[in-house]
């Protein structure tokens, strides 16, 4: 028996309820005290194209997906055709027996590449191009086939509940499929009921019908198949408070906690989920204990991303903690506005959700392709900070820090998130909002502007650390000017070469100040033994897969450590050099074609990474891919310098 360790997947056409089915599974597990990590894949399409949801379950926190499936839960044929090959020996495939005669050619959404791969395999086995054919292959490879006669079960239900329920009942097929799997796993049925209740909390009416359907499915599947299956999920009692959330929610909550009062956005995948969440949560209480909804954020949908960045900057000038969130194409349009903010020392946060590029690229797929662009976006030179979060907890706290940094150093901050983080779901211990410190830097209070009669307030006063006391627009005594032109301390245009030098030096000085002021633990994470045979360097979401793989290295007795860089700019040169100078085999991991981070490391330290593990097929890196590629590099003296990961449907 394998208890509380499972890789589970469901799939289906977009709009057919795959998400809600998967969430019932995820929620039930989390309610039962288990940890989950869920990964969603979908096409740039609204209805009809194939999407799937893979969930790993464990007793301890998990942070990544794996390449194999222990349980494939389906209710359409496309999911079977696409994923039968991923099911492990001893794993299970749940399916609708009514679909077994469906042929490959009847599915218009399968890419030629996919069809030819399946066809080749069927030919090898001498099987027909039907569901039956591929199921047979899976079976021969050791998967268990668990047909769930949905029609029959629905029939019984209809008989019990009366004809009227008919049409709506059909919609419970997803629930039935999911709960069948939980039945086989013998999971606590009460948790499933709770899971259904939470999932359908907005549509109370359908809860009871789904619960009935669940009962039927649970009972049937449990009875028929449990004994043949060696995986189990068992409820765990815990008093740890946990969240089950998505990346975009983590960032949104971080922004609210961090005092963001103004967010602009232009719709774009996957960033806009964050803004829509904020819009739906635009008012909230304050901790002063009053009952009123004094807390609020104004969310503005703009006409484009140029307006999004410039409007956020305008709001920041009025004193708001202001942000915008976007993805690659939108960020490309924000370059000029970002430069203006840099020139005028305006604190503004830009949350960039990387996705497959270039151009429109793979809008719903994953990539970390915008690293170098985020460092150099906009003509000319000005200070900016770039930070990259590796998981949802970091994303939450970094969202706060981004504002603190922005106001402390009075400069734009780019917060790099990515598609994988945005759309995955994970359990975390409750975030601690008491840890959220607000540092507004040198922001002048309403009554703090003291200028003696003749002297004007100097917005760009030259100071030691490059930081000038900042006043909101509208502050008495603090009239000032901004201009994108080079300017004097008052903010008026001047082309004087000496003033130019002073102002360039003042602005760029802030990067040095930031590098000094920001504590090391906010810049980097270091995991594993100090001395190791291989040192992995990475940034952003590969973190989860690397950490999960490190548990396997440990088991294998391989000594591997891992440096995660979170503050990309200003780059923690000394620390990274130190680690790499000590490192025996230096392995860079990131999700882009050219190894952008590795080139940045070399730019700053002169050190070339020994190996690049990269992936650019649009699908996130799994634990297994890290495990296998790093092991290969460590054990094979002829390992290539660049290893391209390929997994993912």
């Amino acid at each position, binding site marked *: 028996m394998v208890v509380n360790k499972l890789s589970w997947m469901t799939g289906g056409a977009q709009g057919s309820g795959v998400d809600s089915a998967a969430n019932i599974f995820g929620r039930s597990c*989390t*309610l039962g*005290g288990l940890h989950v990590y869920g990964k969603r894949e979908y096409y740039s399409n609204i209805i009809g194209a194939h999407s799937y949801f893979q969930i790993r379950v464990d007793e301890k926190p998990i942070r990544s997906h794996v390449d194999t499936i222990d349980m494939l839960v389906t209710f359409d044929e496309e999911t079977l055709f696409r994923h039968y090959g991923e099911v492990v020996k001893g794993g299970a495939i749940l399916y609708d027996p009514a679909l077994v005669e469906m042929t490959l050619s009847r599915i218009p959404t399968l890419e030629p590449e996919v069809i030819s791969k399946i066809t080749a395999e069927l030919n090898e086995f001498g099987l027909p191009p039907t569901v039956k054919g591929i199921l047979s292959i899976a079976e021969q490879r050791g998967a268990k086939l668990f047909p769930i006669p949905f029609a029959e079960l629905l029939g019984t239900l209809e008989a019990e509940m009366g004809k009227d329920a008919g049409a709506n009942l059909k919609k419970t097929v997803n629930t039935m499929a999911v709960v069948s799997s939980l039945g086989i796993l013998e999971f606590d049925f009460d948790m499933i009921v709770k899971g259904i209740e939470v999932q359908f909390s907005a549509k109370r009416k359908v809860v009871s019908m789904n619960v009935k359907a669940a009962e039927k499915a649970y009972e049937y599947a449990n009875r028929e198949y449990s004994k043949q299956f060696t995986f189990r999920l068992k409820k765990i009692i815990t008093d740890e*408070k*946990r*969240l*089950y*959330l998505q990346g975009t929610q983590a960032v949104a*909550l971080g922004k*609210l*906690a961090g*005092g963001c009062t*103004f967010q602009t956005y232009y719709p774009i995948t996957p960033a806009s989920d964050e803004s829509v969440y904020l819009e739906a*949560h635009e*008012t*909230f*209480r*304050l*901790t*002063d204990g009053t009952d009123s909804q004094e*807390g*609020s*954020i*104004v969310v503005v949908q*703009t*006409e*484009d991303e*140029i*307006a999004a960045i*410039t*409007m956020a*900057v*305008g*709001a920041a*000038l*009025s*004193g*708001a*903690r*202001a942000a915008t969130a976007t993805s690659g194409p939108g960020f490309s349009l924000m370059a000029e506005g970002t430069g*203006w903010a840099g020139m005028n020392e305006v604190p503004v946060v830009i949350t960039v959700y990387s996705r497959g590029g270039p151009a429109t690229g793979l809008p719903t797929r994953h990539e970390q392709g915008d690293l170098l662009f985020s460092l150099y976006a906009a003509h000319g030179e000005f200070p900016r900070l770039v930070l990259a979060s590796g998981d949802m907890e970091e994303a939450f706290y970094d969202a706060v820090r981004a504002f603190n940094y922005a106001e402390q150093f009075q400069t734009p901050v780019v917060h790099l998130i990515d598609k994988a983080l945005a759309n995955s779901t994970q*359990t975390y211990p*409750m*975030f601690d*909002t008491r840890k959220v*410190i607000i*540092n*507004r830097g040198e922001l002048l209070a309403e009554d703090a502007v003291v200028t003696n009669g003749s002297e004007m307030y100097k917005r760009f006063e030259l100071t030691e650390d490059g930081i000038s006391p900042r006043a909101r*627009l*509208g*502050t008495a*005594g*603090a*009239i000032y000017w*901004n*201009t*994108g*032109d080079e300017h004097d301390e008052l*903010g*008026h245009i001047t082309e004087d070469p000496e003033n130019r030098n002073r102002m360039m030096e003042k602005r760029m000085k802030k990067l040095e100040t930031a590098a000094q002021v920001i504590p090391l633990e906010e810049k980097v994470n270091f995991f594993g033994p100090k001395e190791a045979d291989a040192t992995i360097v990475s940034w952003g979401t590969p973190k989860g897969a690397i950490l999960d793989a490190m548990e396997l290295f440990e088991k294998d007795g391989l000594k591997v450590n891992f440096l995660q860089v979170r503050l990309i700019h200003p780059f923690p040169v000394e620390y990274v050099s130190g680690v790499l100078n000590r490192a025996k085999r230096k392995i860079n991991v990131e999700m882009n074609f050219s190894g952008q981070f590795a080139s940045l490391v070399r730019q700053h330290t002169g050190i070339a990474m020994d190996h690049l593990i990269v992936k650019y097929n649009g699908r996130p890196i799994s634990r297994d891919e890290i495990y296998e590629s790093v092991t290969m590099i460590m054990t094979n003296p002829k390992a290539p310098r660049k290893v391209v990961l390929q997994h993912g449907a």
Partner: protein
Amino acid sequence: MELEVKTAEPKPKQLKLADYKTDVHNDWCPGCGDFGILSAVQMALNDLQIEPHRAVIFSGIGCSSKLPHFVKVSGIHTLHGRSLPFAIGAKLANPALTVVCAAGDGDGLGIGVGHFVNAGRRNVDFTYILHNNGVYGLTKGQASPTLRLGVKTKSLPMPNINEGVNSLLLALASGFTFIARGYSYEVKHLKELIKQGILHKGSAYIDVQQPCPTYNDINTKDWYAGEDRMDANTRNPLPRIYKLEDTGYDPLVKADSSDEEIQQKINRFIEKAMEWGDKIPIGIFLKNESVSTYEMRIQERIKTYFSSPPGTRNIADTEGCSNADLSAFFAELQVT
């Protein structure tokens, strides 16, 4: 409708026109129409006795967009074409500010026209002054979007290959609720338009015909004054500029105006807006009081918006920690 705005009774500490002037060297060309606009802005602010720290002037990039540096209220000289979104952001974050934008015709109707059209849908409370000189002044005289087809100003190698856009019509189509035209050599009249625009609750658009003596040798001060066409009898020039309010034109649309009345007003508007060449009307073309401002719409959703707006709301408690109580939102996501 009265064009002139009755201004506040002199307060004890009355602000003087000089209080709205900076000592920054003004480098516009001699005779530039921008000087008149600058005076009108300063006079309007002074007439309304707006405290300098409560007003902000936004601008884009161009000769005209240097204007904020010459006015002693806060001034944000932004990017080419982007004054509107900057201004809207500042205004929404602090709705107590008086927000004025100054933009060139290239700036506002060329590169920035997307923001113009989309601003119309919002009706945020600001006043937008467009310096309409028919050319890109600061980049040495290329045709601006308002220059008509076939016109060849001094610095064009060939006659203009594009038709000019009618910005009044465009403002109407975009949804601006206050639409006016001024002339930079009718400074007092322009000042009144600006005051009306500032007092109007919503987005006010003021097109200002602004001669550029350096690059636009067609639409010159003399041309507007009709110096090229003399009345055969009086031997006086026949000015092209005339005032709408002298013709009994009524720009007012009220919340309770009938559809028919509105349709009529719009027909009249269009007729006047299309006049050009021999007769160029200035004055208020439309003042539509029937549309809510964006700020009012936010206030409907967020009850504390005006009292505690994004720019000044307190976000930390006395210990410097976040004062956001997100427990309700965490509860939505909590599982154990």
